[in-house]
């Protein structure tokens, strides 16, 4: 923290540093310098003392030298001119008989990070490569990498590169590893150091001499090597076997990464390696450092994706210690859920039950949802525990239990009887929105079996005026409607009141629209209503599908031993566990019947879409069904806020207009403008448009009201191409739909990106256009011979550029728009 009086301190220090009495006394001098560094690391700007410190550099005292260098390296970039003065001292030190002084000077010379000094540094660096002392060579080798990064554009002398290659055979292992690192950086543009057979075997043979840091570095670089024959492959693997079971987690993880990458087309070997590595990984799970434990548990989760039964017998190792931090506990519970089998289920449930009353509410809720997940296979025992927990009457526990029950019932409808009995009375303890929504959903769906359901709803309806949450109101509407269908006598009166309130007094458009919709639906007759509201029930056969199939190793091999599993895994697991039941069916619904079901599905979509924003973004699993484009999937996460959208949009629009169509490729984004003819979309309500878009995971951000001109919609989505296993390339697409009301030129495709695939694209468009013409024909009839065709201009912006994805996205978008138009007819 910079504290007040920083300037005063600097002045005082300067006075002390330039005091001749201090300078003549080495101890006092050193102590003053110490004070400077201390002030510096506290965050005070002491760059003003630069010239005084340069003077202090000329000394024989190594400790003082080191201290001054710490200072100089931090502030050199602010004072390039004064830094020139240091160079002389440094160059002189490079000739010093003491290797320690030489390496120190060389290191700090390259650490100054001043492009202007490069010419002075090159000569000592070249000399340093041939120094007798290994510690000087180590520094010199990395020095070239630093020099290269100061001037990334300038070529490093080929002679230096050659010398670095030859230093790979240096007797000192650290010099060897540093050469690898330096060459990787210098040759980055050519794809790093050339890993050929002799180099690989040389590195492998010397692996034992390196320390663990060197080993992990070498193993990482070797991942690029592809053995030429199977024999060679097995030679390498057997050489590396001892490293696979290394007690040092960094080496073990790096070796496994290498194993997985070089034997990527031999799944048997990969699986054997996974089994072999499970011992050391388990040991890391019990490591004294909890950060290490965490890393190990996260990586075990990766392993379990491919070999679900791998650690079954060791499930006890994943019991949580009571003093462990919540983030480890959560991961351990996720692992426990994966490891459940007939023998250990009782023990695991007993253990998880203990966590449900944890002081930390997150841990408690995670434990409850873990029990719920186990309940998919062992429903009776789990329900018994969950029901018992309701007796505690604590809001966070009850809420988690009710949500878990909702998810469980969807997958295992046979549990519904127990759940219905248990729900009695828990509405009093429920406080939070998610919990109450879950309860309402259950009351709506199983209302006929819960005797008190109407009374519970009635209380809520009476209080609806003071209800703040939008989601609760929507869920309440749906639940009351559903209950009305099965128990009309008790519910009719309160449904009337609720609809009346929502239509007449409610200010929120969403709630009002939904209420109106239900009201009109009731006019269509009870049978129609029933069809819409009770159309979808869960399918008992779903339960069979729950067990996750083993995924191929290649799916996660790339992110093994990176930070990804530690930072992202949580999100993924969450979407697995929290995905709301109804979404499951949306996902599996083929797109072909989109137009048939849209009328009713968007009703539900509206309610469930807003009923919890959390669910929406969580369960953004690949919605798009096979009928349109199998390899492309759209997703809404990470979410883009309206501000971000506006910023990005304006920025790229400016880029586009400024640079012109041709140059846009440089920034790796695409800009497309296209005309689509489906004017009827204009008459859609924003809600139904939004719902339809969300169905295919396109998020709309802003609209103009319907039938207003110019009519605009802004939207975004993320595309993900999954067909290339190893590199899921995702792009962000921002879009605008615009209808100015003027007759648009039928310009067809005006493409911003000049690419070679125009032919293919043209074909694709023809297809689309045929479809569109079909609709347009109908439209023409319906629009009473309107002469001019109204077109909607679609402007899309994609980053990074991916033509295929963009084209597929456009097809999807057009289909949705057409479907909507035909709905309206």
């Amino acid at each position, binding site marked *: 923290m910079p504290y007040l009086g920083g300037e005063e301190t600097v002045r005082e220090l300067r006075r002390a540093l330039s005091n001749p009495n201090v300078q003549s006394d080495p101890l006092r001098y050193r102590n003053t310098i110490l004070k400077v560094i201390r002030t510096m690391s506290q965050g005070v700007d002491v760059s003003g003392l630069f010239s005084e410190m340069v003077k202090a550099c000329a000394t024989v005292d190594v400790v003082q030298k080191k201290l001054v260098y710490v200072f100089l390296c931090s502030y050199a970039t602010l004072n390039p001119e004064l830094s020139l003065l240091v160079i002389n001292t440094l160059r002189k030190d490079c000739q010093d008989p003491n290797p320690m002084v030489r390496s120190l000077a060389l290191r700090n010379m390259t650490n100054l990070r001043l492009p202007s000094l490069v010419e002075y540094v090159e000569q000592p660096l070249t000399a340093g490569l041939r120094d007798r002392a290994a510690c000087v060579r180590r520094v010199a080798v*990395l020095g070239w990498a630093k020099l290269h990064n100061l001037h990334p554009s300038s070529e490093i002398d080929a002679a230096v590169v050659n010398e670095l290659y030859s230093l790979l055979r240096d007797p000192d292992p650290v010099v060897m590893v*540093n050469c690898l690192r330096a060459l990787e950086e210098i040759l980055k543009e050519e794809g790093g150091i050339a890993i050929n057979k002799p180099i690989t075997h040389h590195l492998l043979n010397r692996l034992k001499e390196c320390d663990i840091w060197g080993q992990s570095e070498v193993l990482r670089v070797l991942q690029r090597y592809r053995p030429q024959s199977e024999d060679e492959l097995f030679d390498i693997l057997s050489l590396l076997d001892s490293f696979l079971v290394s007690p040092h987690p960094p080496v073990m993880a790096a070796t496994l990464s290498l194993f997985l990458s070089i034997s990527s087309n031999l799944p048997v070997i990969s699986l054997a390696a996974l089994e072999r590595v499970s011992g050391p990984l388990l040991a890391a799970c019990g490591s004294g450092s909890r950060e290490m434990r965490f890393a190990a548990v996260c990586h075990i989760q990766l392993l379990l994706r491919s070999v679900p039964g791998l650690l079954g017998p060791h499930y006890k190792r994943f019991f949580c210690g009571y003093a462990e931090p919540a983030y480890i506990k959560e991961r351990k519970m996720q692992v426990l859920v994966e490891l459940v089998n007939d023998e250990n289920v009782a023990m695991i449930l007993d253990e998880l039950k203990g966590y449900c009353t944890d002081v930390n509410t997150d841990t408690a809720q995670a434990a409850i949802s873990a029990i719920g997940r186990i309940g998919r296979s062992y429903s009776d025992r789990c329900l018994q525990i969950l029901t018992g927990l309701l007796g505690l*009457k604590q809001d966070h526990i009850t809420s988690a239990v009710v949500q878990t029950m909702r998810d469980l019932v969807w997958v295992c409808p046979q549990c519904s009887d127990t759940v219905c009995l248990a729900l009695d009375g828990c509405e009093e303890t429920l406080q939070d929105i998610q919990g109450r929504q879950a309860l309402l959903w259950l009351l709506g769906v199983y209302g006929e079996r819960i005797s008190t359901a109407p009374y519970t709803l009635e209380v809520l309806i009476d209080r609806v005026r003071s209800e703040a949450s939008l989601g609760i109101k929507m869920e309440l509407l749906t639940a009351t409607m559903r209950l009305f269908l099965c128990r009309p006598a008790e519910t009719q009166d309160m449904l009337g009141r609720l609809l009346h309130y929502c239509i007449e007094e409610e200010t929120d458009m969403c709630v009002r629209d939904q209420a109106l919709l239900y009201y009109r639906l009731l006019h269509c007759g009870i049978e129609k209503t029933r069809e819409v509201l009770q159309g979808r029930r869960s399918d008992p056969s779903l339960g069979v599908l729950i067990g996750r199939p083993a995924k191929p190793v290649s799916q996660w091999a790339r992110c093994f031993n990176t*930070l990804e599993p530690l930072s992202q895994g949580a999100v993924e697991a969450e979407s697995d566990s929290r995905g709301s039941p109804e979404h499951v069916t949306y996902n599996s619904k083929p797109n072909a019947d989109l137009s048939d079901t849209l009328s009713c599905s968007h009703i539900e979509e509206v309610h469930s879409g807003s009923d919890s924003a959390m669910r929406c973004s969580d369960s953004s699993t690949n919605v798009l069904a096979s009928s349109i484009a199998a390899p492309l999937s759209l997703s809404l996460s990470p979410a883009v806020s309206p501000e971000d959208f506006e910023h990005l949009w304006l920025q790229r629009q400016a880029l586009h207009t400024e640079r012109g169509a041709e140059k846009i490729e440089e920034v790796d984004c695409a800009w497309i403008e296209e005309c689509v003819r489906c004017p009827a979309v204009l008459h859609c309500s924003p809600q139904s448009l939004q719902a339809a878009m969300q169905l295919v995971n396109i998020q709309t951000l802003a609209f103009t009201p319907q039938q207003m001109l110019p009519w605009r919609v802004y939207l975004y989505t993320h595309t993900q191409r999954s067909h290339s296993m190893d590199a899921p390339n995702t792009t962000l697409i921002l879009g605008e739909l615009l209808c100015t009301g003027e007759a648009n030129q039928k310009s067809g495709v005006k493409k911003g990106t000049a690419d070679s695939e125009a032919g293919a694209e043209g074909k694709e468009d023809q297809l689309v256009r045929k479809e569109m013409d079909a609709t347009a024909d109908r439209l023409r009839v319906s629009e009473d011979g309107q002469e001019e065709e109204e077109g909607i201009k679609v402007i899309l912006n994609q980053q990074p550029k991916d033509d295929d994805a963009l084209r597929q996205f456009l097809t999807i978008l057009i289909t949705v728009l057409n479907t909507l138009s035909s709905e309206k007819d």
Partner: protein
Amino acid sequence: MISQVFILSSKGDHLIYKDFRGGAGNDIVSIFYEKVTALTGDQPPVVMNHKDIYFVHIRQGGLYWVATTTAGSSPFTITEFLNRLAALVKDYCGSLSEKSVQMNFALIYELLDEIVDYGYIQTTSSDVLKNFIQTEAVTSRPFSLFDLSNVGLFGAETQQSKVAPSSAATRPIQSSREQGGKSEIFVDVIERMTVVIGSNGLLMKADVEGEIRVKCYMPSCSEMRIGLNEEFSIGKSQLRGYGAAVRVDECSFHQAVRLDEFDSHRILRLCPSQGEQTVMQYQLSDDLPSALPFRLFPTIERDNGGSAAINVCATIPVPKGSVSLSQELSSPDQSAELKPQSRAVVWKIARFAGGTQLSALFKLEVPSLSSASMLEVGPVGLSFELPKITATGLQIRFLRLSPIQPGPSQRWVRYVTHSDSYTIRI
């Protein structure tokens, strides 16, 4: 590859900041601290990111040790590096605390300079480092009368001087060279127990993670031989001797340990380098050779004679909304306290003699008590420290140094068993 390393105190003061790659603004430290403090829990996730910069941090000695890096780095390497850095700082400064780091910042900068160059880890071996590190550690040891009590009358050896004071191993390794300090070597056998005892008193899970740690203050030592119990065996199949077997499931050694005599005589040979290193790690699951150190039915009883446990602390979760506690404890040096925010009664026993049984009666007042509230009581978590005992029964038979050290040298062997997580269900 590591871009920056910094050490923050728990209050967010910058103690050490070192930028290896350049290019990152100085505000990166504040960004990290904001992220840490923005979280509600006191335990932020290990990995956090800000745009392209990833923060990996560990907590040791009440400090945040943070490295910034890129997404592709190995979490194992970075975590291990930070742990190793903390261990080195501890070796060089004597102890690990905000104060010792603050006082020795020059030394730590020097260390960092030698350990990491341009974001690449060069070496962390204290053998190599000792040639480069010039700064001396500053220690603060308050003067204490107890130090004098070790000196016998007229230099005679007293009882106390045979036992190393507990602070003996917390001093910087460097000072031995200049101050002509005692050349000492400590061999610690440290075991951590993770135990779950079911509500019926049955043992449900017992894991022991152990390690032999050597802490060496000798300027030069060519070879050391550590003899373990002869009947020591690894794995299930291998049984040796007739006595009660000392068995572990898995065992791994430091790479410098030579094992040529291990198979026949259970002797580890190594040349210890200065500072602390873990010579051997082992683990044992489920069947412990000795009885459990603590049991709790309605009471906690201890059934392992011969010694005493210190710093025993039982944490008993109680129903939410408990308002007051009345207690009956059996001796005055115990204390019990109700902590409403963590919803627990904490019962502290400073010293727990072996073979004895302590009982305590806690009466809690819970305004809205239901039958289900009983579910919230327990499980009891017990933390303790058992000196002079190992749960596996591992013992060091002898410790020989060769060649015989000139001058006085002292060798200490210490055993301690800690609780990692000792849980008793009620």
